[in-house]
């Protein structure tokens, strides 16, 4: 069954047509990478999947986005949708509270009150996010005191703590050093057995390394979607071929690119 199935999706920011007629499918427990040049609409698309675009004034969405055959834009309770579809942002955004409270924030939001149960969830989520060993002795410390890489894994743990069905990640490693990046990539490879994941990345190696499927965006259109290996080795569309060849032959530029993104677009 398709985890996400998107048809005829169009999105406007006021006058600007940011997503044009997108068709997109994603299987259960698969990792899909979204690639494409800056400003092509990857983040925008990602944010249509948990309706974060509802927060943007003047943003209009048309078409259908189905999560396990349920149209998410007609769901009565958008917070339930966001519980089922978790999100991790480009810049680590730990809340100004302790490590424990950060992870417990989601479960508490959804009504978990028992201390014992919370402790269980927090430990499990931190283990799943491969950060338990580093923070188990400082659960009461402010989350801000962690390193950037640790903060990002904490944010992943926080997202996992509400047991989402899908995890959306928007360039989760672009603000991190190579070592933290490697840790998170490894973590994502492990998560694929338990979660369906969509990840935006500017890093071709990362896409090739961790994803099952890849979708290439250009100027608001989804140009091509397919098996990652297939798409990288035998792209069907020449625009894909061109983008990949440039990016792969200039990996330095590929790594450097995300740094230039204005924070406004990073969403």
């Amino acid at each position, binding site marked *: 069954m398709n985890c996400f199935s998107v048809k005829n999706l169009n999105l406007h920011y006021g006058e600007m047509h940011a997503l044009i007629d997108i068709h997109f499918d994603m299987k259960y427990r698969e990792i899909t990478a979204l690639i494409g040049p800056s400003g092509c609409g990857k983040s925008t698309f990602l944010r249509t999947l948990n309706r*974060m675009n509802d927060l943007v004034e003047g943003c209009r969405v048309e078409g259908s986005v189905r999560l396990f055959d349920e149209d998410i834009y007609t769901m009565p309770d958008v*917070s339930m949708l966001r519980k089922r579809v978790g999100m991790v*942002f480009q810049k680590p955004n730990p*809340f*100004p509270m302790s490590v424990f409270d950060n992870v417990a*924030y*989601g479960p508490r*939001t959804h009504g978990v009150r028992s201390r014992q149960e919370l402790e269980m969830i927090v430990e499990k989520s931190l283990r799943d996010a491969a950060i338990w060993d580093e923070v188990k002795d400082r659960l009461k410390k402010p989350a801000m005191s962690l390193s950037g890489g640790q903060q990002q894994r904490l*944010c992943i743990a*926080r997202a996992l703590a509400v047991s989402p069905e899908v995890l959306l990640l928007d360039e989760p490693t672009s603000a991190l050093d190579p070592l933290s990046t490697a840790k998170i990539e490894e973590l994502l490879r492990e998560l694929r057995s338990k979660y369906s994941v969509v990840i935006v990345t500017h890093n071709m190696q990362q896409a090739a390394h961790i994803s099952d499927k890849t979708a290439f965006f250009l100027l608001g259109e989804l140009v091509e979607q397919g098996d990652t290996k297939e798409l990288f080795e035998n792209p069907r569309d020449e625009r894909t071929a061109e983008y990949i060849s440039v990016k792969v032959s200039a990996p330095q530029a590929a790594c450097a690119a995300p740094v230039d993104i204005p924070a406004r677009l990073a969403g």
Partner: protein
Amino acid sequence: MRGVFFVAALASVFAVGMICVFLLGSGIPTIKEIGVANFLLGTDWSPSNVPPSFGILPMIVGSIIVTFGAVVIGVPIGILSAVYLANSCPSRLYRFLKPGVDLLAGIPSVVYGFFGMAALVPLFDSSMLSASILLGIMILPTIITLSETSLRAVPGELYEGAVALGARHYRSVFGVVLPAAKSGVIAAVVLGLGRAIGETMAVIMVAGNQPRMPEGLLEGVRTMTANIVLEMGYASGIHRQALIATGATLFIFILLIDLSVPLITRGHSGSRLLRLLGRARKGAAT
């Protein structure tokens, strides 16, 4: 050129220093002369009796209760307004509400006093309650403006992070955004406190000003500020000195309020003393 800036910066420090020297320099010897206990804990203020009696405890209590009342009324309303203005308000409504708040800040206190006499005194008499309500309104713009600024300074990613976990708007705002703005909001409350305890004219017009221990919310009360203003015009000798000492006491209260800020905001971290000193310098300058 740098010298000019330095001198300009020194001016305010110099002013504070002069105020300190004047108030404490003439206040503390007077307090000693009257007797610390007689002055601070005495409940009888009868400057024209023979012998006179200068107990300002009723005024201290009056100032504290009226200020506390203002905080109880003004802080919740102020913080809720700030949250609404910063995080929930449609922009069309904002353009209408925000100037309203700004206008509130610009109204002279004597006008507030008239408003209190016309609207509050008929309901609650000249009393602590009237004064508290009026001061609660007067500190609103301070609290709203500063809290709103610090709420707006919280990165949007925090709010989005909470929303993305399925938290609803108000849970995200109160659970994540407001705590992130905590130190700014506390500073706003403290400034409001300072304004309330130092307010004079409006209080005189609605508080009744009886220099005796207040016994209920609907009783009249005299604050330290009112005490000074009401009697300074004709006081002389030790009476005059006692009023200056009242001012010194008020000044010390304001210093204490300012000093308490770092203790509240950063309750349990290491270099508390350093921050306390830094804050003391800043506090003295405001």
